[in-house]
């Protein structure tokens, strides 16, 4: 079958099983847009800014596990996607970004709307392609999806000059692709796994530490089976929340800069650590020289370069987390009797002491709205079953701390890059994937203004996201750091001249509700969640001065946490 390059691009998407693409047209992309017009298998979602397209595709991918797809024009269309591509890259999210390019003969001429797309995106993609031959489109698209979704996933950019999309070629979409230079290792090495199992069984103070990789590889069941059978204390990074249900008795909550006291202390004190799809990020480890000084570490990761990168590892296991955990469980189950239950029980006694500190307790108020309280109410009203996206800042940490996730792929946030502006477009992508589920975007007054224009997209496609704007009239997280580390010099962190968010939501055709009393929070949330077909923007005026606790300051170790000030230092606090 002979098709134009543009039709081939779209047919590839269909044959790849792509349901939605997120895009924005422009000159170089017009042939492809014309091809979109000729079909209705692949649905196009018109965003209002290309950054929004990338975050929406990213949110869709995080919630479904399927690659997100973006289509943009050359030049500014491409540069606007860079933040979103880098966001997906840092969190290993599968995404294919199709970028139109100026016609081949103009490349290198500083043509109108020309940028070196491959060059600009190279440092923040898993791979990128510039297609120079119409006959290569189908194969390249197949490679792009294959690379994006396998191994350690990530974004792939496919740059296609306009003239290539006008030429025609025989269409054939390869069913399968084999690349000699790209062969991710899936199964773990059984001997290495056996060494890991030995260490786990001998442990006296073990901890299981899981990250986003456990979710990306769909290792939830194998992970829970492991945790339940060994009954070892377990913790998760920001990116891994939900893989182990928060209510699992072995789960200690999130670790890291704003993790729980028990999770961080157990990390510090452990003798054996099993890391599953977690990359020892600096926000997780704190000061490296003080990181888990006595731990022997077993690390499972599909990316060999993640293993031993920041922290020396005793037993490296390269492979897909799910596959490796299945192998590990098979070796471990018959030997469970070897676990020294006595020492594990003692370890739990210590951990439970730490837990009794209740490091997430906060001072409730009936005069000002505490942001933590809002998140807790949302949890209650949605039975913990909502998809929650967030932006970046204090609200993100409170969402992670107080919305206790029972399932994976429900917590959608930019962990690695920390991109303000992510929350709303990501919510849009999630809502498209799950039209009947409740999708809440927990955001802040600064972050929401970074991709606000997507409110318009939500209206066009009838996406009834619930926006919870935890409005503290500050870039709260910046203010918190200035309070702690800059002697309260609040340099440019006050959000002056905030818009009237209620009117703003209304002018976009949505419902806006302002909430300024603690007593009204529950009612407003119920009302918003009850409006199944409307986007509701809740502008919730929260305590300006609230800080995120506990906290490990930069340069500190896991055993040096700051707790809520009224409770004094850890040393002074009674362990119940």
């Amino acid at each position, binding site marked *: 079958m002979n098709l134009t390059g543009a039709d081939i691009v779209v047919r590839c998407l269909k044959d790849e099983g792509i349901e939605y693409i997120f895009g924005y047209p422009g000159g170089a992309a017009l042939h492809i847009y014309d091809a979109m017009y000729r079909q209705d298998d692949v649905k196009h979602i018109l965003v209002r800014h290309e950054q929004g397209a990338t975050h929406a595709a990213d949110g869709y991918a995080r919630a479904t596990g399927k690659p997100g797809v973006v289509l943009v024009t050359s030049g500014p269309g491409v540069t606007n996607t860079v933040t979103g591509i880098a966001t997906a890259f840092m969190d290993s999210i599968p995404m294919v970004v199709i970028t139109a390019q100026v016609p081949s003969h103009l490349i290198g001429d500083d043509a109108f709307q020309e940028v070196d797309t491959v060059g600009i995106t190279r440092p923040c993609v898993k791979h990128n392609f510039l297609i120079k031959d119409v006959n290569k489109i189908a194969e390249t698209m197949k490679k792009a999806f294959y690379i994006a979704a396998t191994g350690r996933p990530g974004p792939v950019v496919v740059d296609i000059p306009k003239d290539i999309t006008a030429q025609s070629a025989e269409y054939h979409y390869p069913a399968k692709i084999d690349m000699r230079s790209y062969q991710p290792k899936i199964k773990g090495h059984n001997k290495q796994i056996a060494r890991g199992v030995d260490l786990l069984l001998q442990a006296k103070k073990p901890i299981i530490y899981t990250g986003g990789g456990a979710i990306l590889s769909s290792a939830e069941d194998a992970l829970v089976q492991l945790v339940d059978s060994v009954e070892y204390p377990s913790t998760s990074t920001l990116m891994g929340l939900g893989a182990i249900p928060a209510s699992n008795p072995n789960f200690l909550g999130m670790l890291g800069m704003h993790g729980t006291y028990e999770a961080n202390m157990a990390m510090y004190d452990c003798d054996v650590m099993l890391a599953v799809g977690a990359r020892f990020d600096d926000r997780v480890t704190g000061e490296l020289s003080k990181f888990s000084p006595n731990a022997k570490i077993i690390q499972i990761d599909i990316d060999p*370069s993640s293993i031993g990168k920041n922290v020396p590892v005793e037993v490296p296991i390269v492979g897909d987390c799910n596959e490796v955990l299945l192998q590990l469980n098979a070796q471990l189950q018959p030997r469970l009797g070897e676990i020294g239950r006595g020492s594990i029980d003692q370890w739990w006694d210590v951990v439970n002491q730490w837990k009794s500190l209740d490091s997430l307790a906060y001072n409730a108020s009936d005069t000002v709205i505490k942001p933590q309280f809002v998140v807790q109410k949302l949890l209650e009203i949605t039975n913990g079953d909502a998809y929650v996206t967030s932006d970046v800042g204090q609200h993100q940490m409170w969402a992670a701390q107080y919305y206790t996730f029972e399932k994976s792929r429900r917590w959608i946030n930019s962990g690695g890059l920390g991109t303000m502006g992510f929350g709303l477009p990501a919510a849009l992508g999630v809502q498209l994937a799950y039209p009947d589920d409740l999708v809440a975007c927990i955001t802040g007054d600064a972050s929401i203004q970074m991709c606000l224009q997507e409110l318009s997209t939500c209206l066009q496609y009838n996406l009834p996201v619930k926006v919870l704007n935890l409005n503290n009239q500050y870039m709260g997280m910046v203010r918190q750091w200035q309070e702690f580390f800059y002697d309260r010099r609040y340099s440019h962190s006050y959000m002056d001249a905030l818009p009237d968010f209620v009117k703003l939501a209304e002018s976009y055709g949505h419902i806006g509700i302002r909430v300024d009393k603690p007593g009204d929070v529950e009612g407003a949330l119920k009302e918003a969640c009850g409006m199944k077909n409307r986007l509701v923007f809740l502008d919730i005026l929260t305590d300006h001065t609230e800080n995120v606790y506990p906290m490990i300051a930069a340069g500190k170790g896991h055993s040096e946490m700051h707790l809520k000030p009224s409770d004094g230092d850890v040393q002074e606090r009674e362990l119940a």
Partner: protein
Amino acid sequence: MMRRIISVLLENEAGALSRVAGLFSARGYNIESLTVAPTDDPSLSRMTIVTSGTDAVIEQITKQLNKLVDVVKLRDLTEGKHLGRELMLVKVSASSADQKDDIKRLVDIFRGRYIDVTESTFTLELTGSTEKVDAFLEALSQAEMIEVVRSGMLGIGRGKNALKL
């Protein structure tokens, strides 16, 4: 800190070189020299990278290189017996008879070659290990150096050891 010679087979694709160069600059790795050219199999290029770093850094370098989708195979040649060669072209001014004699002596000792001669200049070619090439340059330093061009190192394993697909 040890000097390492890493040989890389990569897809002979546009942009493959900049992926490698970009990786080194983005992650702050050292590059002493980098050479690249197609191999007997025109779909493959071979690159020789000379770098240095602690063992941990070198481990990351090889892992990060392997992670590049264009990289097919690589080896740290310094882990085994290997040979490294550089090519150097030097243009020196040689006007007096004395100068010409001095240079000729050095060229003989170092087994260099004359590849171009004019009334007042010699252009010389020399291949050898980095140490030899350095020594030659040092010995020449008396002469009036006009231009020096070095290829950077090419590396290959000794004996049956080969980096092939």
